[in-house]
């Protein structure tokens, strides 16, 4: 029987290599489910918003709820200035949410369980936030690492800590999401294995697995929210220097 880690294997569907760099860019099961996620989002917005009316249909309500949710998140954490980056935050939220939720379907691949995917997104968020901060405030943006109202002699200690905590942000973002997804799926797979192995008594791990699936769906939504809201908070640091 397949081990609990088999579900995370990236299997090429179509092998592709970018010759000049010798770069492996095969279309894999990971890419397939990213495509499925984008397809679902496109379908949802296309069907939900065609002939969008004042009295929304069910699909339109879903679109509007997603929009209002992300918009409220940006407004609460960044303010009106942050609405310029609403498309980016919304894309980030939807990409992670869809990845997490598609992963809850047995047999699918959870692309957000891979540290390279989440780390890449985290690094991009931090680079984007830094670029925005430098563009808005110039070198004054560096005062982010030297909070005011602190005794002078603390600065030699404080500034390195602030810099490290800033640089560690993409890793904390990435680890939080990928590890949550991985751990949840391993747990589900393990309990799923027990159901078969224990025969008639498999009903017990089955019940546990049922509960765990509910929990995992909550975590899937929650981690997408956490990633997006932390990105908003970092964006807020860049836009409204404290």
């Amino acid at each position: 029987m397949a081990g609990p880690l088999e579900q995370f294997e990236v299997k090429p569907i179509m092998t592709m290599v970018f010759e000049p760099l010798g770069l492996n860019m095969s279309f894999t099961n990971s890419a397939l489910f990213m495509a499925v996620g984008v397809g679902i989002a496109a379908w949802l917005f296309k069907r939900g918003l065609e002939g969008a009316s004042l009295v929304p249909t069910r699909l339109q309500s879903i679109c509007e709820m997603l929009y209002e949710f992300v918009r409220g998140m940006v407004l609460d954490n960044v303010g009106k200035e942050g609405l310029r980056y609403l498309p980016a935050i919304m894309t980030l939220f939807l990409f992670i949410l869809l990845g997490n939720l598609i992963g809850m379907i047995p047999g699918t691949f959870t692309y957000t369980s891979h540290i390279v995917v989440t780390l890449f997104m985290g690094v991009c968020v931090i680079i984007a936030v830094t670029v925005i901060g430098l563009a808005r405030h110039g070198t004054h943006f560096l005062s982010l690492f030297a909070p005011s109202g602190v005794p002078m002699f603390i600065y030699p200690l404080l500034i390195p800590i602030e810099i490290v905590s800033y640089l560690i942000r993409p890793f904390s973002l990435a680890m939080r999401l990928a590890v949550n997804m991985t751990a949840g799926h391993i747990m589900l797979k393990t309990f799923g294995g027990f159901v078969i192995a224990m025969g008639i008594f498999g009903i017990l791990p089955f019940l546990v697995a049922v509960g765990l699936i509910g929990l995992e769906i909550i975590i899937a939504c929650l981690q997408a929210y956490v990633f997006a809201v932390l990105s908003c908070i970092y964006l807020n640091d860049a836009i409204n220097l404290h």
Partner: protein
Amino acid sequence: MMARFRGMAAGIFAGICLTLVSFAAIAAETASEVDVTEYGGAEHSGGMPQLDVSTYSSQVVWLVIFFVLLYQVVSKLALPQLTEVIRQREERISGDLDKAAELRAEAEAAYSRYEADLADAHARAQLRIKELRERIAEEQAARLAELDTSMAEKIAAAEQRIGKARETAMAEVEGAAVETAQAAIERLIGSKVGRDEVERALQAVVKREAA
């Protein structure tokens, strides 16, 4: 603002590309190493597939492709329509609320007008009633006065008539007394006495009685 946004987007995109290239370089380097030693060694040794660096480049490439695609879907398809429909709804709601407030003000104005009219009508009616009452009272007083005078006249006339009647009655009584006295004297003394003599005698008696 749009230009600035474009600039930001370009910046973000440049950042993504930079990171992508660096990741790709690392991945390419490690992948070639892995190829030489043992491809997919992580799977067989029971390690985590997440740590199999040979898959990193393809994951990142497709992540960028689909993330940019989703960004296009969100920014070109979803957000413009969503902001539009929500703006329309808010407009409609605030418009309806304004209209409701207007109609309410109108209704209130009509009601106050109606109340004013009602109060006016009440006041006019009260005035008419008062006038009417005064006129009736005047007429009554006049008629009473008229009645009084005519009654007084009638009483006076009646009194006059009564006085006259009394005088004639008294005269008649005197005449009757004289005749009776004549007849009595005739019976008593058997001879007729002159009428003037009897009258005189009676008047003397009356005078004496009166004194």
